[in-house]
């Protein structure tokens, strides 16, 4: 089996077996439930802002696993062992992105249906939210891995990860939430941003891992 497949499989296992995938989802639901408390139970208002709330909650939930994506492997020597075997760090970052996406997205999509119910979204809106999350999450996963690689080994990595990742994720939020009201154009732009992140972030992550080794 190639190293790529082995790493993807390991990430998926770690996401589900270690309970790593459930914590962000619980956090996501919690954030989504905070908004009705904050802005009041007006059903019309909630239905209007609901899609945006779900996207903001997804973004915050995506931050939670960042610290465990790269740093533990750098510390335990797994990355060194992969280097010794001639596996490029860009390949590792791509495999981690795919594995993380596979572990993170299905529970998130399921939880988004629940959150949509709490916020009183219509069936049509729920479908739109699900499609936009499906398109946006690959970019979010790539960004999470790259951020994890950049902050690996730093003290207070979690807080720095938030400062690094959230500003870069704003385009995903704009087009993701925008696609719920703005129609097809926003969805295409969301796809473009997501694709750009998937293509670019692994190279950044690979360079960050290499720089962190010296």
């Amino acid at each position, binding site marked *: *089996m*190639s*190293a790529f*497949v*082995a790493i993807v*499989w*390991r990430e998926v296992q*770690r996401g589900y077996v*270690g309970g790593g995938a459930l914590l962000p989802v619980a956090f996501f639901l919690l954030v989504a439930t905070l908004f009705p408390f904050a802005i009041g139970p007006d059903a019309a208002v909630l239905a209007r802002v609901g899609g945006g709330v779900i996207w903001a909650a997804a973004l915050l939930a995506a931050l939670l696993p960042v610290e465990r994506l790269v740093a533990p492997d750098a*510390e*335990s*020597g*797994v990355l*060194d*062992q*992969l*280097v*010794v*075997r001639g*596996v490029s760090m860009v390949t590792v970052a791509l495999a981690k992105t795919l594995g993380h996406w596979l572990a993170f997205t299905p529970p998130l999509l399921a939880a988004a249906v629940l959150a949509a119910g709490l916020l009183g979204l219509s069936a049509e809106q729920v479908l739109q939210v699900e499609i936009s999350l499906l398109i946006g999450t690959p970019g979010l996963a790539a960004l999470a891995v790259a951020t994890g690689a950049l902050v690996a080994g730093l003290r207070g990595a979690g807080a720095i990860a938030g400062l690094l990742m959230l500003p870069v994720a704003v385009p995903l939020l704009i087009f993701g939430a925008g696609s719920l009201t703005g129609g097809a154009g926003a969805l295409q732009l969301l796809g473009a941003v997501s694709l750009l992140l998937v293509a670019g972030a692994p190279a950044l992550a690979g360079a960050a891992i290499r720089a962190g*080794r*010296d």
Partner: protein
Amino acid sequence: MSPALRLERVACLRGGRLLFEGVDVTLGPAEALVVTGPNGVGKSSLLRIAAGLLRASAGTVTREGKVALADDALALDEEQPLGRALGFWGRIDGGAPAAALAATGLEALAAVPVRWLSTGQRRRAGLARLHAAGAPIWLLDEPGNGLDADGLAMLAGLVAAHRAAGGLVLAATHLPLDWPNTGGLAL
């Protein structure tokens, strides 16, 4: 292709300090070299340069053949049972974790999570990962640390069998390693 490891006029600069320079190492099939020296002299750095994990500040490194490295970092998932943790590397290397567990005296511990292993058992687990990689070039950083008398004999046996099969070994240690027909290099 017969394995070979060559370091020519290698120097290492770490944090603005010159650890060593002009180090030459030439190893061919069945050969072994033990690098000795006090703490902080750059033994581990020399091994990481040989492994390609660290760039040499000067000089050239040539590796012919696959490399396996056993150092302080175990590189096994702590929460996984030992057998499955080794299985991850087995899937990449195509080696046989079961045979490696038997060779290092760990066959009874395959179902035990890695984080429960003792210091000596962890060291053996690292050697099992090295053994299972099936690489002709072995790089060992302080391989004797934490091993009991049995473990040291097992290590010497592994190294002898590896060399008999045409493999080569570069080890760094501050403990005396009693291996026959082994070259020495004092940093």
